[in-house]
């Protein structure tokens, strides 16, 4: 049987479906930002941006663009009715103090114990830059990671032990890839959802650590 990987939109929908009603959510820079566009109609979710903004609305267009109203990716956005703005120490108190329900981050690697690597490949010539990733990694109640299942050259990114520098240890709750949704539990890594037609054996072959079939 053949199968087609989920596209970015379907991956975002998988995440949006797992976010409980009324959650306070931070979306990491890049790919995770798309999750905001796929929250089901009528489901009220409040988005936080690390630069001191709660109640962030969609990306600004045309006359709405104001470079002093931006998201964590430094893109101009809008403010929803009920939004609030606060300084950076308050914003990270919100993050580090455990007040956010969900944070969606990108990833280079996730270890079977929930370790996350997403800030540095450790390459000697790389410019080190961490931003808010380490704070989000320890602060939010649930960390969801959105990433491709393997590297461009086909190496698994879900592994026994991460080899890239850690962002946070034992942090990740669920991994969302183009092939599967995998929960990290005390019993092991459970493949909760898979693309239609993909067998568990095929998924296991693309994964660098043992999975449990749902």
């Amino acid at each position, binding site marked *: 049987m053949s199968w087609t990987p989920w596209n970015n939109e379907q991956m975002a929908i998988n995440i949006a479906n797992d976010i409980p009603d009324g959650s306070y959510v931070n979306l990491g820079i890049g790919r995770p930002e798309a999750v905001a566009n796929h929250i089901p109609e009528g489901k009220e979710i409040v988005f936080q941006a690390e630069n001191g903004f709660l109640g962030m609305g969609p990306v600004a267009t045309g006359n709405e663009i104001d470079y002093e109203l931006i998201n964590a990716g430094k893109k101009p956005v809008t403010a929803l009715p009920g939004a609030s703005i606060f300084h*950076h*120490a308050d914003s990270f108190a919100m993050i580090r103090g455990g007040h956010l329900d969900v944070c969606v981050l990108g990833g280079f690697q996730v270890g079977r114990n929930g370790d996350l690597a997403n800030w540095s490949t450790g390459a000697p010539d790389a410019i*080190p830059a961490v931003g*808010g990733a380490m704070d989000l990694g320890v602060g939010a109640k649930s960390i969801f990671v959105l990433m491709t299942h393997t590297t461009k050259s086909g190496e698994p990114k879900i592994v026994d032990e991460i080899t890239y520098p850690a962002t946070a240890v034992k942090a990740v709750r669920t991994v969302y890839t183009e092939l599967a949704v995998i929960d990290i539990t005390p019993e092991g890594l459970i493949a909760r959802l898979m693309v239609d037609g993909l067998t568990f054996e095929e998924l296991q072959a693309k994964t660098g650590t043992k999975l449990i079939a749902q």
Partner: protein
Amino acid sequence: MRSHELIDKRIASVEEAVSDIKDGSTILVSGFGGAGSPIDLLHALLDQGAKELIIVSNNAGNGQIGLAALIAAGRVAKIVCSFPRSSQSEVFTAAYRAGKLDLEVVPQGTLAERIRAAGAGIPAFYTQTSAGTPLQEGKEVREFDGKPHVLEHAIYGDVALVKGRDGDRWGNVTYNLTARNFGPIMCTAAANAIVQVRSFVELGKLAPEEVVTPGIYVDRLVEVPSPLEEQKLLDAGIRRSPQ
């Protein structure tokens, strides 16, 4: 009869506001990307000439504007920041690769809290952030509730350069939207907090609950009615600071 002087923190120009900044100063610079970056004060500092500066800011500048202009001019010895990389941060990248400046990368929340702590009289604190990562290297780690926490020290500034919106002669300041970011905490953490605002307003014009930075934290206030905005300059293809 003894005469009294009213409190008045207003300064006539950005040049005057930065005139006595010394070589080797630690300077806290507000802004998250271009939002809240005090470009006009930074350009005045460029003209003023202080060098060997230690800059504490979330980013490391874009194009050759503001912070990037200071780096390009060889005036920055070290940057303490969370995210020096961006699509147009080539000035920082070149200087860093050439070994012309030191970099201390700090997680963004730790950076904010270290600055807040300095202003609040807290010399150091423990946080879970960066525990078990390369950024805990060389730092004391202690367990609380069974989890490792990293000791982080306060960051004190000799000077803060901050962008606000409105300010009165007592130094009370408000901020525009998300340009607030690091401004309020940097004002509390620096011996000399210099704030550029779009408008000076009469004392009493700002409602007490509207004031974000109380005047006690501000030393100098300068009016820049049409501040330079990094992103607007870059959008217009202007990559160098207008001199």
